[in-house]
């Protein structure tokens, strides 16, 4: 049952990415290009996502436990530390360079472009590099 829910949620999430234009690197870079022809669309993607998620998360966390699990697995770390800041800064640089964040990069594999597979492969290498060479606080 968990797996079926995850599959359906993945489909909805991926469909949302495709609908919103986030799987189109030119639209993402257009959003980040304030000094060029700015494409504000992605701000509305995030706004609409937050509009659904914020009240729902609030109500869910108030209500106790998830339908199919014993507890919520929300992160408890609240420290604004060096790894968070450096990691987020680096992520933004890579995002701006190519136009993919992790979700759209994976979803774009559906289009069968060679460079998307290269991007996702490199992203995995980067993730495992972070496991071997973490940034310590």
């Amino acid at each position: 049952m968990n797996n079926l829910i995850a599959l359906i949620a993945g489909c909805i999430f991926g469909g949302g990415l495709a609908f919103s234009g986030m799987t189109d690197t030119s639209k993402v870079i257009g959003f980040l290009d304030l000094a060029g022809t700015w494409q504000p669309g992605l701000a509305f993607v995030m706004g609409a996502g937050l509009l659904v998620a914020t009240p729902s998360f609030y109500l869910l966390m108030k209500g106790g436990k998830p339908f199919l699990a014993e507890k919520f697995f929300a992160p408890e770390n609240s420290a604004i530390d060096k790894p968070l800041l450096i990691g987020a800064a680096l992520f933004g640089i890579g995002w701006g360079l190519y136009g993919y964040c992790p979700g759209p990069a994976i979803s774009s594999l559906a289009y069968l472009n060679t460079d998307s597979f290269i991007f996702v492969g490199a992203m995995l290498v980067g993730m495992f590099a972070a496991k071997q060479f973490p940034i310590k606080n």
Partner: protein
Amino acid sequence: MDILFNQQILIASVIGGLLIGVAAVMMFAFLGHITGISGILFQGINKLNQSDNLWRLFFLAGLIIGPLIAHNVFNLAIPEASNKGPIIAIVAGLIVGYGTRVGSGCTSGHGICGISRLSMRSVTATLMFMATGFATVFIVNHIF
């Protein structure tokens, strides 16, 4: 400032964002997990042989199947492939992979789920990656 925006883009953006929000809420309501895609991808492969990990692989499969359904059912145009080339794909992919792990999240985990949970840590991370994203595109598009 030139702006490219119209009603069609607004509608597509809002529908896409609503779907993303619904998916994240579904994951939290049923499984209790945050939909952070960098984390799901890394743990999905890092813990490949653990049975309680299978949901991550199903979610990732959905992430690829979803766009196929959306493009076919709603007749959406397939986006053109990036013209940045494989070298930039490798460099950017490495940085995105490394940065999202070190920073504990990406656009979904920090940007959607974290901000929804009113986590200051996620708000800070989101402001940071937005800022360096804007700066990077400015440098690439307007300085070089």
